[in-house]
């Protein structure tokens, strides 16, 4: 008989995803330090600078949190869709589509009340994201087409559409070296609090609470859970599992679209290929690593915002901003590895006869 055996734990610590993340973070920082050392940098100096510039003041915290908004919103959308055990790999495209839809409404409407306009624009971005996932959702519920693949492929279609728009119909003649659409007017910029923090963050926090409620406390969330647990049980219970999955996908896509809308109105102020820097993909990982818990996504998303800001500011020290990406990725791998030890145990086999 073998010496060891692997066994699944029955009771898993409820905070295990949080602990896993902390363990992952220390692994990430450790590996980041080693890379910094090989580049002739003092890790402590670099990290303390990163810390200072990302969370050292109200201003820098605001910048970090602003960066976290699209991650959190898209992550929340992914977590809703995952309630029915479906994946949305298309958040990246949905973010762009949110921006595109918003811009479309903006250039085709007369503005009478800017504040009301902002609301309309954001709603439109939500609809844009939902429209972007519409085809994968229909293909999934009607024909069972794998949603991982269709949502993934739609990213390329939407990003292609973005490139087309910013090089063609929407091209800003003033933007020479970087193709982009014309800026939206200042009157529809999202207002800020504490100097820099965008109202988007408040939207983000409200969405977190909303998604938590929807998933955990509502009838809809219950029906999603049952449908996700077993489609047959849902049918047996008289729950229209396909309809619920469809709605969940639209909401999830919509939230990613909203992420694009908020990002546009608060950060980039125009449609370009820079509207999302891989937020849609990072959001998937953030959502997964937190066990799809809304408040976990809020927390880890915020941390990742800080890490990204920290990464971009250390460029001034001559350190590549990619180091932040490496730390992010190793943190995530570290968290996955740690998660294994929270869900499995290794038992030594005895042979006493």
């Amino acid at each position, binding site marked *: 008989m073998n010496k*060891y*055996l692997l066994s699944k734990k029955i009771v898993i610590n409820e905070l295990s995803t949080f602990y896993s993340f902390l363990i992952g973070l220390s692994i990430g920082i450790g590996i980041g330090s080693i890379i910094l050392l090989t580049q002739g940098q003092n890790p402590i100096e670099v990290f303390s600078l990163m810390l200072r510039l990302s969370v050292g003041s109200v201003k820098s915290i605001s910048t970090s949190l602003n960066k976290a908004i699209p991650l959190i919103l898209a992550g929340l959308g992914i977590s809703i869709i995952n309630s029915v055990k479906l994946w949305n790999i298309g958040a990246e495209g949905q973010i762009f589509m949110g921006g595109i839809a918003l811009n479309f409404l903006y250039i085709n409407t007369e503005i009478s009340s800017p504040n009301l306009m902002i609301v309309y624009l954001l709603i439109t971005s939500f609809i844009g994201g939902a429209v972007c996932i519409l085809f994968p959702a229909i293909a999934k519920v009607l024909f069972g087409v794998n949603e991982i693949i269709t949502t993934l492929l739609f990213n390329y279609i939407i990003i292609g559409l973005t490139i087309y728009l910013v090089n063609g119909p929407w091209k800003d003649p003033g933007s020479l070296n970087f193709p982009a659409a014309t800026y939206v007017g200042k009157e529809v910029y999202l207002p800020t609090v504490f100097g820099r923090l965008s109202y988007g963050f408040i939207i983000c926090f409200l969405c977190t609470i909303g998604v938590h409620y929807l998933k955990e*406390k509502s009838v809809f*969330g219950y029906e999603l859970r*049952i449908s996700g*647990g077993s489609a047959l049980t*849902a049918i*047996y219970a*008289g729950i229209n599992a396909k309809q619920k999955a469809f709605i969940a996908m639209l909401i999830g896509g919509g939230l990613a679209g909203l992420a694009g809308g908020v990002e546009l109105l608060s950060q980039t102020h125009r449609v370009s290929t820079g509207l999302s820097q891989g937020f849609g993909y990072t959001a998937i990982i953030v959502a997964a690593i937190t066990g799809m818990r809304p408040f976990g996504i809020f927390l880890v998303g915020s941390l990742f915002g800080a890490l990204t800001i920290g990464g971009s500011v250390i460029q001034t020290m001559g350190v590549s901003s990619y180091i932040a990406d490496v730390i992010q990725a190793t943190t995530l791998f570290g968290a996955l590895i740690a998660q294994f030890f929270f869900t499995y145990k290794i038992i030594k086999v*005895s042979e006493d006869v």
Partner: protein
Amino acid sequence: MNQIILEAKNITKSFGNTNALKNVDFYLYESTIHGLLGENGAGKSSLMNILSGIYQPENGSLYIDGEKVKKLNPDIASKLGIGMVHQEFRLIDNFSIKDNLTLSKANIYTNSFHEGYEKYSDIFSLTVNYSTPISELSVGEKQKIEIMKLIFNNNKIMLLDEPTAVLTPQETNQLKISLKKLSKEDGKTIVLITHKLKEIQEFTDYIFVLKDGVMVAKDLETKNVTKNELITLMMGEIKQSEIRKDNQKGTNKLEIENISFENTHSNVPTLENLSLKVRAGEILGIAGVSGNGQVELANIISGIEREYSGKVIVNGKNISNQGVSSRKNLNLSYIPENRLGVGLAPGVSIIDNSAVKDYYKARFGPHLSGNKMLNYLNILIKQFSIKAPNPKAEVSTLSGGNMQKLLMGRELISNPEVIIAAQPTRGLDVNAVEALHDLIVMQRDKGAAVMLISEDLDELFKLSDRIIVMYEGRIVKEFSMDEADIESVGLAMAGLNE
């Protein structure tokens, strides 16, 4: 007595909180058929899975031909000559018969596949070509391929887990002949797992009995033990209660008229012109080997399957065109065959699962009251004595008996008018079975019309007031309890109707 070929000592294995095996000793004689008897959940499958290298025990050692086995996995086990046929077949559906028979590294018919296949198709009276994909085979054929797989891998020790569960009595008989041939002519050592006494007595030379993970009897010579002794060993002291059959029958509560159903997705048997009636206070037994349309019938009655022709009438109301919720309103309960997967959603908490039938009673608009759900679960736990310590734990952490109690409690607590129960006690230990039978009879006495779908003839004979036999989507025979006997019902189940 032949030589001992395999010996397992002091095997202990647990799954989470439940001990599947406790210090079990087990051994096998060469060229002999052994019966491993025990109730469902006694640990038979776990023990076989350990011998074939699938599960690792926490404690214990294994000797083959007197030599200690240092490391074991399915590959090593196969090379040591141990092979197992699992209850759920381990065949690759998209692959041909030939691929499935030759993939293993232990395969000895690499160069002489055709002769081998011919020889053993003969022994097993198998008539399909070896290039046929597994997905096109019948259950019986698949099983033959599974056993052949062991032969092709030169496995001297063949562990068969409930091989007769999916077979008709006639197929079972044929299997018996093939196995005897294999042990006598090819010198195979065979272990047959079953909880059916009749088969143990007909098939085997020696009997081992497991009860609650403990080996309670070893080495019994089959010809020297009686059925009653085996029952006592297997179940301990049981109170096999007789069911009163003096129940008052009322009006027709469930009527089905001319139901026909065609499954467009696959070639699953269709239903042809089925009609039946169940009265208040009556239990109608539906006998049949699984896969003969019982599930489809139950799904139609419960409103899950909507594409059919014919009428479903509950309490005088024609609800043929309505869905699941209309049945819920008429207080119809359905206990599906597949308890984890249909009746209960795996991966979802106990509390969520307890509310599947009545969750809309805990809603205020879009809000779902957590407190109401918890109260409801607590009532179920109390009334049906369910052991479920943590409501938030996944439902699959419950034992089979507690899962079924949760499911049946949920469906029966509202004293339904009509109950459709499919295989309600499959895979449960005898005490749980007794408790669940009592529940069904209690509902009958309260005036429910019960349709009991089961493969277990003992259960059907014990509970039913009438028995209908289904075969290939048709009702082939109806028996009143006076005229029904196991043999004629068995023949009807096999489609051999006089």
